[in-house]
């Protein structure tokens, strides 16, 4: 594969084509440019057609790269294709991705994630690994540099960073937002000098690490603990990396709360996210309400889709619970 020929909108091809057998490479490479640029998912299932999703639409892929609304002319994935994909995404080393198989996804170079489904092998009631893997969900994530511009001045005051919680329903850009917050805090911006940032990236989504190296721009002064459980990761960072801010994704367990309090006591600022549509909704969750009651967070950002995906609906002052925004911004 020639590497330099992809324009930035389809930069994903560089990594993702490499993970596919040559016949499927040709099919995917044949996708028209405008669709390729907004592609979000490629679904590959054994014995069934390849389906691509982008901008809310989905198409069946023909053997010549043509897109069809119905599956008649589609290319059907063979067993051999599936075996080849599995070998390629694991870099011919299933033994090296045991942990990833247990979690159900593999992160590729560039931070792209491939979700896997197959038959779970259990040991002592816990998932040991997956076998007969036959479904792949290749997710084409795009980092959006500057997406945090609109909120950053609400979470920074002078040289101080506020404890911040981002609330949003799934797929509304939580991770994209805190990734860019990490980058801006770490690199600094006019009126703010960069600080040390630590990321605990339990699901490898924030930094998109490949072999431990962040593939997304998370800042010059950012340390990433990849694939590490949140609570333990926060403690590790406090002990070892002396960050000024710790950023992590999707809190919700009791031990997460303890770790956050530990960080607070060490004088470290916390920026994190949770699944929830608004404060009212969050207050009905046992763990989240506990955190909210303690008034740990000084800023609570709520994301939604009133002006499109990633709209900042509200920014609350964590103590008074007053909304600091007049209207949603995007």
């Amino acid at each position, binding site marked *: 594969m020639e590497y330099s020929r992809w324009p930035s909108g389809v930069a994903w091809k560089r990594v993702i084509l490499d993970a596919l057998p040559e016949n499927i490479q040709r099919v995917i490479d044949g996708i028209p440019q405008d669709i390729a640029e907004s592609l979000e998912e490629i679904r590959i299932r054994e014995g069934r057609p390849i389906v691509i999703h982008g901008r809310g639409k989905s198409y069946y892929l023909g053997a010549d790269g043509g897109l069809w609304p119905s599956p008649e002319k589609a290319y059907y994935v063979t067993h051999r294709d599936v075996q080849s994909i599995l070998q390629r995404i694991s870099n011919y*080393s299933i033994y*090296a991705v045991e942990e990833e198989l247990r979690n159900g996804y593999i992160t590729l170079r560039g931070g792209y994630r491939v979700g896997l489904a197959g038959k779970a092998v259990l040991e002592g009631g816990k998932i040991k690994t997956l076998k007969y893997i036959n479904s792949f969900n290749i997710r084409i994530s795009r980092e959006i540099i500057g997406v945090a511009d609109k909120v950053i001045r609400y979470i920074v005051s002078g040289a101080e960073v506020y404890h911040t919680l981002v609330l949003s329903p799934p797929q509304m850009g939580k991770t994209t937002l805190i990734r860019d917050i990490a980058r801006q805090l770490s690199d600094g911006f006019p009126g703010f000098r960069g600080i040390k940032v630590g990321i605990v990236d339990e699901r490898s989504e924030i930094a998109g690490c490949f072999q431990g190296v962040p593939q997304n721009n998370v800042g010059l002064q950012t340390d990433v603990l990849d694939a590490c459980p949140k609570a333990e990761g926060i403690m590790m960072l406090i002990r070892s990396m002396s960050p000024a801010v710790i950023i992590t994704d999707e809190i919700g367990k009791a031990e997460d709360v303890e770790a956050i309090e530990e960080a607070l006591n060490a004088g470290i600022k916390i920026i994190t996210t949770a699944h929830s549509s608004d404060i009212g909704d969050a207050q009905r969750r046992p763990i989240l309400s506990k955190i909210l009651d303690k008034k740990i967070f000084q800023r609570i950002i709520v994301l939604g889709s009133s002006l499109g995906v990633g709209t900042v609906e509200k920014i609350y002052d964590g103590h008074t619970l007053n909304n600091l925004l007049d209207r949603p911004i995007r």
Partner: protein
Amino acid sequence: MVFIKILSSLVIVVCCSFLGLQAANAYALRLKELRMLRMAFAHLESEVINYATFLPEAVERVAALLHGGVKEFFCDFSRRLQKRSGDTAAEAWEKALKGWKKHLHITMEDTQILLTFGKVLGVSDRESQQRYFQIIQSQLRNQEQKAEEACLKYQTMYRNLGVLGGLALAIILL
């Protein structure tokens, strides 16, 4: 005339001795290659089991410790994996092995053992990979033993056969 006769007989003796030596040497070389292969698998096992190094890189590291035809075979395999030319590791292994077989002195039986191993290399979890590594190493140890016996039995025989055969041929022709 006599001079030419002596010279040609000499050439015959030298050639036959050389052929005999070559045949004798092949036994020693096979033994050496089998030992090196076993060492290579021991190192590869450690890379795979202890460090979970990705296969293309692990093979490259092991190749650096080897020499001769075995090294070339491992380098070729690693290159094929890195280029992602073959669809599976097994295919890359088979192509590399078939390409370098003529530069190695291992027998058909040895090759067959290696081919079988190639089919399972990298395709399962650590636990079962370790078992496969143990199997291949004990198989190679068996082959080594056979090679050693063959070496003892035939090495001197072929060496002598070469020289004596050459002499006999020269005498008959004289």
